[in-house]
């Protein structure tokens, strides 16, 4: 089993405490519960220090990859984030977004290779904001951090990734964002070929990783491919290929560490079902797609609706039932203030027609 062990060659330093937290644009909009869960887990369960700085901004990575934001601009934006981190007295930069993670790595490497670009960036930053910056001591993705504390989380586990009735480990498809390790293999746990960051969590928490042929294939987001409607056919074709390839293994859920992947593997299942009538999960429904924070949250016993799992297109209830997690079906579409937050239209990928769960009289 060479493959199983090869991830060990790719290790990196992950700080133990005192993180400066950079958020993700997509996640804040589409499943904000995950970022909240990360903060909660670190603060409450693990007792770590983490700064969620309201002053930081988007890294502008989406704009950069869509050829809208020039390199000099994004470098300056990134420099500002570092400067903010310096102001707050932190040295360990953690980012919630894979695109950002790639951007930070890319820019730090560029500065390393071409020091003049760093010089210029300092100049631009100073001209624009009057700020200066020091580079972070360590840079990690938040999934790295969860991976780092996976054993501690396992010790505190309320639920394991096992089928509560049969005792069998759940079969989990893990999906790593391309920009996590494909640009700089050394920057990811396990490198780019056999990434271990999510697999490590799954194994530690009692699940079983599914190794299927298209495991390393991109989800298809691809920025321009998705952003231009006419090109979306190419985007969805990638997820389609992955789903076709994983379906025969009958996975219980998919876990992803990238905002785009978690979103598209989930939402494309709905689109494919509408277009072709094909579904990939049990009983003609979809395969639930989770973020690693949601997975960790479930393990630690968080309420699924607090974790924001109602935000997924594919219903997660079958998974919750399987794990033996108690939840209030009626509370699914109630916000934190107890008010109705709206619900998506019923679709094939949903296991439970939403109207019967919550009878809404507006």
């Amino acid at each position, binding site marked *: 089993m060479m493959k199983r062990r090869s991830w060990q060659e790719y290790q990196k330093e992950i700080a133990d405490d005192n993180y400066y937290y950079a958020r993700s644009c997509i996640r804040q909009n589409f499943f904000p519960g995950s970022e909240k869960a990360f903060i909660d887990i670190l603060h409450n369960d693990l007792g770590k220090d983490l700064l969620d700085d309201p002053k930081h901004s988007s890294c502008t990575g989406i704009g950069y990859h869509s050829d809208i934001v020039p390199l000099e601009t994004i470098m300056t934006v990134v420099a500002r984030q570092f400067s903010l981190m310096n102001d707050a007295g932190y040295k360990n930069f953690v980012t919630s977004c894979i695109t950002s993670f790639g951007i930070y790595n890319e820019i730090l490497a560029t500065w390393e290779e071409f020091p003049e670009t760093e010089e210029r960036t300092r100049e631009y930053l100073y001209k624009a904001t009057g700020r200066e910056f020091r580079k972070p001591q360590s840079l990690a993705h938040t999934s790295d951090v969860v991976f780092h504390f996976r054993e501690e989380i396992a010790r505190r586990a309320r639920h394991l990734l096992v089928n509560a009735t049969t005792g069998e480990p759940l079969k989990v498809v893990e999906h790593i964002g391309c920009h996590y390790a494909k640009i700089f293999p050394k920057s990811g746990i396990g490198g780019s070929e056999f990434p271990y960051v999510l697999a490590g969590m799954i194994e530690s928490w009692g699940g079983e990783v599914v190794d299927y042929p298209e495991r390393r294939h991109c989800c298809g987001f691809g920025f321009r491919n998705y952003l231009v*409607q*006419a*090109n*979306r*056919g*190419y985007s*969805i*074709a990638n997820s*389609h*290929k992955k789903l076709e390839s994983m379906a025969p293994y009958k996975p219980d859920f998919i876990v992803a560490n990238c905002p785009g992947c978690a979103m598209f593997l989930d939402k494309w299942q709905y*689109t*494919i079902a*509408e*277009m*072709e*009538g094909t579904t990939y999960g049990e009983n003609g429904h979809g395969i639930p797609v989770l973020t690693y924070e949601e997975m960790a949250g479930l393990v630690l016993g968080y309420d699924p609706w607090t974790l924001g799992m109602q935000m997924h297109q594919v219903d997660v209830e079958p998974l919750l039932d399987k794990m033996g997690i108690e939840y209030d079906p009626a509370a699914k579409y109630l916000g934190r203030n107890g008010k109705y937050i709206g619900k998506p239209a019923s679709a*094939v990928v949903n296991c439970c027609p939403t109207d019967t769960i919550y009878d809404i009289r507006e």
Partner: protein
Amino acid sequence: MAAINFGYTISKPRAIDLDRNNLRKSDEILHEMPELQTCIGCGACTAVCTAGNLTDFNFRRTHTLVRRGEYEGIYAEMNKCMLCGKCRLVCPRGINTRAVVMLVKRKLGDF
């Protein structure tokens, strides 16, 4: 189920998937014309092609696709051929190319 129009469709995979492609027809064709196996892929047939001079018909590519189990649209493609026989005169492997066209059309008429 009424399909929703999303403004795009799922792009067909470009890969030739030999796990999925059914090679039965292809095998039947090769069984009847074993000499087709000897194609070097030099493209002389396509270069000399009377129809290829006027349209994008590519005999080499088309029969190679058939041998890979990619049958869709092949009949229409082979129908561009005028059967003039020029290709047979230049084939360095002596393949009866006209017979290949007719055989493929006969076997793949319903694709």
